[in-house]
């Protein structure tokens, strides 16, 4: 196998010294982490490497020598460098050389022992791969490869060579902690040797986050304890709590806040990203909510809204009345059964009359209610939208009632018709065997059955028309509510932090790597530049999207159409833990 030497780009023009890094024998790759400069005392170097090995669980060792000199190295230097191979025994021993100001490199590999099975006779091929140490350290490969073996130097052979390189650099952070201003026994060159990267704000935030998180976590636990108390388990409140989407959204947000302010540290990067995405989502929500609040409360818009609300509700009720009058006449030229028509029409008209009276009763309080609802926008735009969805549901409650009456009547009719149709043909439904069996009926059974069948059949158009009209109205309301829920879902689950990271620091989220072949000369080792290939936006969304409320329609389109045809009631959203009707 070709020997691959991974060399950091920050060490390309440093002075001569020793190469410190890790050798991965399964992939025949040498990952150079830093360059140790002359002068040094070998004992101290070995002590430092032992410390680093223990702290980071990475098998760091001296891999070879690095020579960056003005002209061809003298004989004595060459012998000195070879002698170092005896002080720091490593198999194989690399000797990298570069002329000061030149572009081409040379590399020699010395094997101390003869290889057990000579694989390729002839010269050992070496490939130099340059990598940006800072980017490789900070980046996260997707899909993340789990390396279960954390012993020094042990890597399962099934993981790719590149995952091993990324893992090595990421775990050797302790090696990069000293910079050239430190008065240590050895002088290292790596990406942080010009000065360790740190930020005062980040440090202050880290110090302050401890007590703040503790305080907020205790407050939130108090709130959840109040919410979980027994009063809310009793029937009216628990029923309301499960039906209103506002309560669901508040519960969801409370979960998010508990996650953010929990005092437990995130164990791996996926949990950290989730926390960060949750924080970004909550901040966006609150920011949008406050914008909405300032817009609503400015220039007395709430007053205008409240003044407009009752006439709108009146107008809707009037339109419904016109619709019912139309149905009671000859709708679309169809001839209805007059008696049934009148009964159904009058029943629904009375219902609307009750509804209008109720709205007029509520009209003095509407402005106050709206004002307090507007205040809730400071909890977040999602809460305000959920409240809007609930208000729409409450205001169109009569449409829901009409739909339920129409659907039940139609459903009864359809079941009756199918059963009597079977009787008409001389069959019946065998409940035990769950199939249709033939059956011999008496003459009077057949007579009455056929009579009832005829009655139901000729009353079918009227019922079907009422059912159709009210189902369409109900579906319209459901569609409006669905759009609002979609928007709420979008705000809830958008991973803003990950998207921002992909935009501003694309090397942090890596889908893989890409190579570029650098200028090549015959006889010299091949040089490649390894760059991070960032994750595409679609995969960022897919990997890091936050879990949403879970209120998704459970029926497919086919099942929905079937339910509509047979008059079964449709519940577009099932909240978590609802029992099936």
């Amino acid at each position, binding site marked *: *196998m*070709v020997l*691959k030497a991974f060399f950091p780009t920050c060490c390309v023009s440093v002075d001569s010294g020793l190469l410190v890094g890790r050798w991965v024998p399964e*992939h*025949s790759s040498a990952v150079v982490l830093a360059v140790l400069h002359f002068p040094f005392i070998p004992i101290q170097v070995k002590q430092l490497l032992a410390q680093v090995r223990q702290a980071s669980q990475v098998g760091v060792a001296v891999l070879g020598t690095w020579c960056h000199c003005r002209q061809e190295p003298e004989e004595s230097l060459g012998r000195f460098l070879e002698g170092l191979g005896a002080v720091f025994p490593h198999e194989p021993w690399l000797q990298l050389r570069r002329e000061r100001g030149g572009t081409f490199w040379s590399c020699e590999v010395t094997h101390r022992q003869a290889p057990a099975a000579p694989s390729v006779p002839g010269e050992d*091929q070496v*490939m130099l*791969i340059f990598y940006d140490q800072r980017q490789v350290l900070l980046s996260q490969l997707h899909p993340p490869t789990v390396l279960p073996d954390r012993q020094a130097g042990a890597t399962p052979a*099934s993981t*790719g*060579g*590149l995952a091993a390189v990324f893992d090595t650099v990421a775990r050797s952070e302790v090696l990069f902690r000293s910079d050239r201003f430190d008065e240590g026994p050895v002088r290292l060159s790596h990406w942080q040797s010009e000065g360790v990267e740190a930020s005062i704000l980040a440090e202050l935030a880290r110090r302050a986050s401890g007590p703040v998180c503790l305080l907020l976590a205790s407050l939130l636990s108090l709130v959840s304890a109040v919410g979980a108390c027994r009063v809310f388990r009793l029937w009216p409140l628990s029923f309301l709590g499960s039906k209103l989407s506002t309560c669901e959204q508040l519960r969801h947000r409370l979960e998010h806040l508990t996650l953010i302010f929990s005092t437990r540290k995130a164990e791996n990067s996926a949990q950290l990203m989730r926390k960060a995405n949750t924080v970004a989502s909550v901040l966006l929500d609150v920011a949008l909510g406050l914008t909405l609040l300032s817009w609503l409360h400015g220039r007395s818009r709430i007053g205008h809204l409240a003044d407009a609300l009752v006439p709108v509700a009146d107008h809707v009720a009037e339109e419904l009345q016109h619709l019912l009058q139309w149905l009671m006449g000859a709708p679309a030229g169809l001839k209805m059964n007059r008696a049934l028509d009148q009964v159904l029409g009058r029943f629904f008209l009375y219902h609307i009359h009750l509804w209008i009276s109720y709205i007029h009763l509520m009209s003095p309080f509407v402005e106050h209610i709206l004002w307090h609802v507007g205040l809730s926008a400071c909890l977040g735009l999602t809460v305000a939208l959920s409240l809007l969805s609930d208000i729409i549901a409450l205001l169109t409650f009569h449409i829901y009632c009409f739909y339920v009456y129409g659907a039940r009547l139609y459903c009864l009719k359809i079941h009756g018709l199918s059963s009597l149709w079977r009787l008409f043909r001389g069959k019946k439904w065998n409940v035990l065997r769950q199939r249709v069996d033939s059956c011999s009926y008496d003459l009077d059974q057949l007579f009455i059955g056929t009579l009832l069948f005829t009655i139901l059949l000729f009353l079918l158009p009227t019922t079907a028309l009422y059912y159709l009209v009210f189902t369409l109205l109900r579906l319209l309301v459901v569609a409006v509510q669905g759009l609002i829920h979609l928007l709420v879902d979008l705000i809830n689950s958008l991973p803003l932090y990950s998207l921002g990271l992909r935009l501003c620091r694309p090397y942090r989220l890596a889908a*893989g*790597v*890409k*190579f570029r*072949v650098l*200028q*090549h*000369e*015959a*006889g010299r080792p*091949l040089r*490649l530049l390894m760059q991070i*290939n960032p994750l595409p936006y679609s995969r960022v969304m897919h990997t890091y999207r936050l879990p949403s409320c879970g209120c998704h329609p459970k029926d497919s389109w086919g099942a929905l159409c079937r339910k509509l045809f047979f008059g079964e009631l449709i519940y577009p959203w099932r909240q978590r833990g609802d029992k099936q009707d």
Partner: protein
Amino acid sequence: MVTRLPEAGLEPARRLGLAIAVKRGAVRCGRPSGGVMEDERSFSDICGGRLALQRRYYSPSCREFCLSCPRLSLRSLTAVTCTVWLAAYGLFTLCENSMILSAAIFITLLGLLGYLHFVKIDQETLLIIDSLGIQMTSSYASGKESTTFIEMGKVKDIVINEAIYMQKVIYYLCILLKDPVEPHRISQVVPVFQPQVTLEVMGDREDRQQVFGVPYGQAETQAR
């Protein structure tokens, strides 16, 4: 999609190095330049456009194949633009709303930009680095480059797959990836180069095998 493939005997990288051997046809500039061996051949794709294949040998362990696809033809661009604008003008005479004309201009511009940025591939490059992996780069007409790198440990085999595309049989090179759970199964088939831009080489099966230098997938399949 592919079934019953033969077992690979040779190392995939070395085998692909024999691929597209010089058999017949024009060979241009086969001289070394600065230590890199280069040569170029021209082909035609299944729609009749001209393709150029350029091979570069950097070192015994690193080879690059560059396929340049036919450029955007002025004729088709003019035809599409004229159609869209004539349709918009027709609608304008019906509706007397000048917004339609502005909308048509916007649609044409955005459509052209989108086509150049997301659809039209100018050049495809295949870089094979021994014992490291295979890298495929597509550069689009707007300058965007999208790169995929497959590690050598994941590559099971490189074969030519026969597929039936409408009324003809086309041959395309594809990489078979190993299943991470079960090493004997194939998890994914990755076509190298766009399927539309497939080299159409005339001749019989043995000829084609000699040209490409790799064995066939034994099952013939329907193109998607």
